[in-house]
């Protein structure tokens, strides 16, 4: 293994001195005290208070993904923190952050950091209420310190850094071992538990529990060496993972979603500098993240606006009918359970508002029932999704998340989709709104007029998302795709349309769908809304027919969804032919693809932007 981890000696002495700590707090008095205390521990401390001097720094994607911009209207301390961390990806070993900060909820920052950079984060607050502490832990904090903080507490923070690194190594190793078994799994396992399985399998195998908060980002720091370059799962990379996973799965019909191994993914991704371990670790995180999102979504109220039309397409695939799926999707989307992985960023908030619903829905709903037909799945996931809104996570604020309620024309622009195209930063803002409204990316955009609800894709998406734990990655991929094709920074709509136009080799059909970022939610098929959809659909049909493999419908859905994302219309490389699922092709291709595409688009840039927004919008 070229894994750096394996090569890194576990038994090396970990020298805490020189630990690079980033302290984020809005209280100048405490910052000064902490700085002094940390220096006494021989740590290098950097205070992020001066960062406020950065002013309204536009945290424009400092990192590759996760646009933090958009809603950041005021100088944000937390935002500065994030941007700083992103700029210097390997610059810090641990982050200590206060819970209450003016511009951003400390928990959100925590999630962001965890997902993007995979750094251990310690929370601190004067409030030691159990519920707060619990919240901190749930969001992935390594520790929760009460103010006033004592020296002895600070002295021990290095163990969190070490622990995390060790876990990373272990995870990777687990992943590797798991990989071999995966291929033989049957896809049917994917069903609902698909996602769960993955997560569970992984966790059980890996015995990793501390990934809860890290989904997307994979940080490969050598545990013992602080110099190890971290792999930041930017929006570019993440989607690739999705892509590959989906792709993989597509290729091996019987492969359980969770079984797609990192190796395959790595190969598919074709990123030269990436190692298998990187992928494995990231994948695991992603899965865990998705499962967590899913849970969150379940609690989240359904996304507003999203109509759960729910006409559950349960019927055979075909019957799903575009209409159905769409409705289904919508609901799902609304549920926000879409864990659209679009945003690699922390989707922590599964709030309906983000368009994320769609994208996220996909992601978050990793565990959709794998049901066999697409139709079946789609509806289900959708429904289930409705309760969950994973949207939050990813909704890229940027895109005008037209996801708003599908029912009606999805006004939301695919913020998700669009995201890739244009820098979210600014757009994010609008997305937020858009997203909130509708989890389903109803393509409200002007582009399409009313595809929104009908987009069955959404539902399919959701279902797919659910199943596909990897959805997240898909999103990412999608997102990247989006960016690929859509580069216009313009409104989402533009991007979408652009996307739609992007001829995706196999996904053509999807294109339209995806482009309609808004329709992302709809995964389902937004015929009306998405002009592209039409074309996409056609393509889809073509593509689906041939590509659809006999994979479990669900699986397909997932893939589709995930793929869509990844495919971003730009994913020409994704060969749908893999998915030769007659059913899918015939019946739901639209939905599925649509949704997928939708996700893709929205996911990407949009997602990020959205996510950012939600993240920051406390």
């Amino acid at each position, binding site marked *: 293994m070229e894994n750096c981890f394996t090569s890194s000696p576990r038994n090396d002495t970990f020298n805490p001195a020189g630990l690079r700590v980033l302290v984020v707090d809005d209280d*100048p*008095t405490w910052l000064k005290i902490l700085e002094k205390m940390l220096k006494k521990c021989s740590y290098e401390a950097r205070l992020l208070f001066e960062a406020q001097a950065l002013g309204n720094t536009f945290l424009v994607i400092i990192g590759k993904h996760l646009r933090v911009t958009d809603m950041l209207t005021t100088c944000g301390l937390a935002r500065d923190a994030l941007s700083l961390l992103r700029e210097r990806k390997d610059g810090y070993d641990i982050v200590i952050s206060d819970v209450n900060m003016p511009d951003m909820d400390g928990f959100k920052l925590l999630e962001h950091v965890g997902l993007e950079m995979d750094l251990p984060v310690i929370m601190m607050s004067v*409030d030691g209420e159990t519920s707060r502490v619990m919240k901190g832990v749930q969001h992935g904090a390594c520790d929760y310190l009460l103010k*006033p903080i*004592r*020296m002895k507490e600070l002295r021990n923070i290095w163990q969190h850094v070490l622990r995390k690194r060790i876990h990373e190594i272990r995870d990777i190793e687990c992943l590797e071992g798991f990989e071999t078994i995966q291929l033989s799994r049957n896809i049917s396992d994917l069903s609902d538990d698909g996602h769960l399985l993955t997560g569970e399998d992984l966790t059980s195998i890996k015995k990793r529990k501390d990934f809860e908060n890290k989904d997307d980002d994979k940080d490969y720091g050598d545990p013992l060496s602080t110099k190890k370059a971290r792999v930041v799962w930017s929006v570019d990379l993440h989607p690739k993972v999705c892509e590959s996973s989906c792709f993989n799965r597509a290729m091996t019909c019987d492969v359980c979603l969770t079984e797609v191994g990192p190796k395959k993914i790595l190969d598919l991704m074709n990123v030269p500098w990436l190692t298998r371990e990187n992928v494995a670790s990231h994948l695991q995180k992603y899965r865990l993240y998705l499962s967590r999102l899913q849970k969150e979504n379940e609690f989240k109220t359904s996304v507003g606006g999203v109509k759960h039309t729910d006409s559950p397409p349960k019927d055979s695939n075909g019957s799903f009918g575009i209409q159905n799926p769409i409705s289904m999707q919508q609901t799902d989307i609304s549920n926000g359970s879409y864990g659209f992985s679009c945003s690699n960023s922390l989707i922590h908030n599964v709030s309906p508002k983000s368009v994320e619903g769609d994208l996220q829905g996909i992601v978050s709903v990793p565990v959709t029932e794998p049901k066999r037909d697409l139709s079946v799945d789609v509806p289900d996931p959708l429904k289930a999704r409705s309760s969950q809104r994973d949207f939050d996570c990813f909704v890229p604020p940027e895109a005008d998340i037209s996801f708003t309620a599908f029912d009606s024309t999805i006004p939301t622009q695919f913020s998700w989709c669009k995201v890739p195209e244009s820098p979210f930063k600014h757009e994010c803002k609008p997305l937020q709104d858009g997203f909130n409204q509708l989890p389903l990316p109803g393509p409200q955009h002007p582009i399409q007029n009313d595809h929104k609800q009908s987009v069955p894709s959404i539902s399919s998406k959701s279902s797919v998302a659910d199943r596909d734990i990897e959805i997240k990655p898909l999103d990412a991929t999608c997102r990247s795709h989006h960016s690929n094709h859509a580069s216009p920074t313009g409104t989402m709509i533009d991007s979408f349309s652009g996307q739609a136009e992007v001829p995706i080799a196999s996904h053509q059909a999807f294109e339209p769908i995806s482009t309609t970022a808004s329709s992302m939610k709809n995964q389902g098929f937004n015929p009306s809304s998405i002009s592209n959809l039409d074309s996409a659909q056609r393509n889809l049909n073509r593509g689906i027919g041939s590509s659809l493999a006999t994979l479990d419908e669900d699986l397909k859905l997932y893939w589709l969804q995930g793929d869509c994302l990844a495919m971003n219309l730009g994913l020409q490389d994704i060969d749908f032919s893999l998915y030769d699922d007659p059913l899918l092709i015939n019946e739901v291709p639209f939905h599925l693809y649509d949704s997928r595409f939708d996700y893709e688009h929205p996911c990407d840039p949009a997602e990020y932007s959205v996510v950012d927004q939600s993240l920051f919008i406390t």
Partner: protein
Amino acid sequence: MDRNHLLRQVAYMKNSLFDQGYLDREQFTQLEELQDDANPNFVEEIVTLYYNDSARLIQNMEQTLVNRPIDFVRLEEILHQFKGSSSSIGAKKVNDACTQLREYCSAENTEGCSRTLQLVKQEHAVLRTRLETYFQMVREAG
């Protein structure tokens, strides 16, 4: 000799601050331990920083009670910040007053909030005077 006397006085003053509940012994002592050659006046700097920042917070809190309708949520937020800040130097009496204010704030008791905010201000000012005297003596003692 003189210096020893001064040093003893400094110690006496500090102890009375602790005993009278103005300062938290543990926290303040920890601050003093952080002081070293690199930062010989560290504690004083911290206290100064605290007073500058907390004055602003108190002002903000007063403003919330003036506005109509009263935004108790905002008041609580500021109070939370203020409390965190006060804990940095171990301002005990100030913090106790804050706790009272917090309760009135939760109950949305305007009159109670006004009253206790005044108490917070008072304790805040008293401590400041005491600390100023203290640091002056510290400087004199060299």
